[in-house]
């Protein structure tokens, strides 16, 4: 069985958990400041269900900081709305409860626990306290489905710490799925993956995006070209270009930014990464 053949991420499940219909993430005028240093000066972008939104830019452009601000890890001003809910100014766990899920640059799973335990915890945000006090007796259908989706259905009892790097990142995505995140913010989800793994991940993301908003921060330009629906380019804390992959690649400002820093970062969208595909 492969992710392509089983669809468990669709409407039935959302209905089952009572989550509202898919909604969009709209960020406008986001600004983050650390002391005197402005990490993000004025970022506006949006992400809608049905599209995979890529957030790219050279190192230090403020991509991860944007995610940090949206998820409440750092304080930002401006606005980030999920549907009608303003996300900024909430504690991290409240933001998460509104349906915002994120991954980290280094896959952050509970290493000591089994895959099943990882997923079960991620699925538990809305459990009542009484349910928390009981042991887990069965594998919930949505967990089983998500495990299927991320290709770990056969490894439910495996300790997460023993998973391969790529598997950990899938597990993390799986956790967002069972968490019923309405918007997924993924920070470099394919870092360190082989080409095949990247392809599988990209396909997975496209499927997820059918019912949820997906934002991907990525350096891998080849990956972006293959799977991005729309792209937002950040540079020094503000948006310099936005649009389809083709549009962004053609934008002279983007080329300038990437060429200017290509020598140090090796992230020229047109030349460097393209050569490997």
């Amino acid at each position, binding site marked *: *069985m*492969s992710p392509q053949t089983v669809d468990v991420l669709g409407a039935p499940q959302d209905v089952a958990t009572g989550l509202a219909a898919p909604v969009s993430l709209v960020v406008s005028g986001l600004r983050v400041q650390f002391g005197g240093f402005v990490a993000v000066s004025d970022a506006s972008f949006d992400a809608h269900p049905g599209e995979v939104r890529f957030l790219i830019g050279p190192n230090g452009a403020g991509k991860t900081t944007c995610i940090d601000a949206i*998820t409440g890890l750092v304080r930002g001003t401006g606005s980030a709305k999920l549907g009608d809910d303003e996300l900024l100014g909430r*504690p*991290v*766990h409240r933001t*998460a*409860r509104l349906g915002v*899920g*994120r991954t*980290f640059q*280094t896959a*952050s*799973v*509970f*290493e*000591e*626990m*089994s895959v*099943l*335990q990882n997923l*079960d*915890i*991620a699925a*538990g*945000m*809305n459990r009542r306290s009484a*349910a*928390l*006090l*009981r*042991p*887990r007796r069965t594998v919930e259908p949505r967990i089983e489905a998500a495990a299927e989706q*991320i*290709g*770990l*259905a*056969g*490894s439910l*009892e*495996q*300790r997460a*710490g*023993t*998973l*391969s*790097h*790529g*598997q*950990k990142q*899938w597990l993390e995505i799986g*956790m967002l799925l069972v*968490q019923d995140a309405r918007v997924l913010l993924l920070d470099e989800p394919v870092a*360190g*993956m*082989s080409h*095949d*793994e990247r*392809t*599988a991940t990209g396909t997975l993301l496209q499927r997820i995006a059918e019912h949820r908003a997906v934002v991907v921060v990525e350096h891998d330009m080849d990956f972006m070209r293959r799977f991005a629906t729309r792209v937002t380019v950040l540079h020094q804390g503000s948006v310099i270009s936005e649009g389809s992959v083709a549009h962004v690649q053609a934008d002279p400002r983007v080329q300038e930014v990437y060429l200017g820093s290509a020598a140090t970062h090796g992230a020229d969208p047109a030349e460097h990464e393209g050569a490997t595909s």
Partner: protein
Amino acid sequence: MTGGLGVPSRRNALAGTGALALVLLVVAPLMLSDFRLALLGKFICFAIVAVGIGIAWGRGGMLTLGQGVFFGIGGYAMAMHLKLADAELNGGSGVPDFMLLYGDGTVPGWWEPFRSPLFTLLAVVALPALLATALGLAIFKRRIKGAYFAILSQAMVAAFVVLLVGQQQTTGGTNGLNGFRSFFGYSLSDPANRLTLYYLAAGILVAAVALSAALQRSRFGELLVATRDAEERVRFLGYDPALVKTVAFALAAALAGVAGALFVPIVGIISPADIGVVPSIVFIVGVAVGGRAGLFGPVLGAIGVAWAETSLSEAFPSFWSYFQGALLIAVIALLPGGAASLVDRLRERATSPRRGASSPPAAGAAGTPAPAAAASTPADRPAEEVHP
């Protein structure tokens, strides 16, 4: 098997708990002289504290150097009740003896509720739990953790002791409270009643272990470990780690309170020397030696260390300090999982040649498309830094 986390399987937990109950409730009373049995009763009190520490520290990562506060609250609550009850015995004045001697001969208002046995029993559990909840929410909401939390909890116990010592007229000062004659109407000088007390303590310890086992196997138990290992991740999954930790901390506090309340009639005294900075760390020592994260490690460690102290210090008083220090250093440095992990390690060596060699499950390799390739290259990167 639920896998990982050092949680014993249900069968093992049940067998272990049963064995513990058998030893404490049947074997020990048959084998030990009544003096040694009373000693064991005292160690059982420490073991009940240890079960709580196992939950808070072993499972939750909160190194609490302040369990003496909760132990003390439970102990003093019980001691106050016993003093008041004794004072009413045989048509007494209702004023505890030490207040007549050192105070102004009147019972302060905050003592009065402890005349009620029901209130006292409630207070023994609820007061420590409430205090821990209040402190926990305050501390954990502010994301104070790790070493900061340890130091704060230690400062807390230091403050508590200073307060107790300074209020001699109402707390007995350094003398503490002692000289109890009865326990809920039963004479404490009757050996039959003392035996009952022992059974009570042993029974509560067994119940505490069972509670801890149930907790470890519950979803909450898993969440607690997750919070210990990656607090931020838990937060991003929509949980408030402060709440998770507070619940565990309050549970540990309640267990310490119950232990303190049992300690009072068994040992016959509660004083600041039993609950200060050093006793609070010594509570930890037993847990560390036995194995902090396991189910039985804390219990066996606490009883074992206390037993060793009593028997070794009888023979060589100064040697004990060296031994205790060296034991702590050796266990923490070489065997952080405690004695329990030694057993696991031996068992593992016996069953499988190498830990890392256990191959990823076949289903994962066969059933997935492209990801399958990755499964064969286990990227065993060093464990993520654990925030204690």
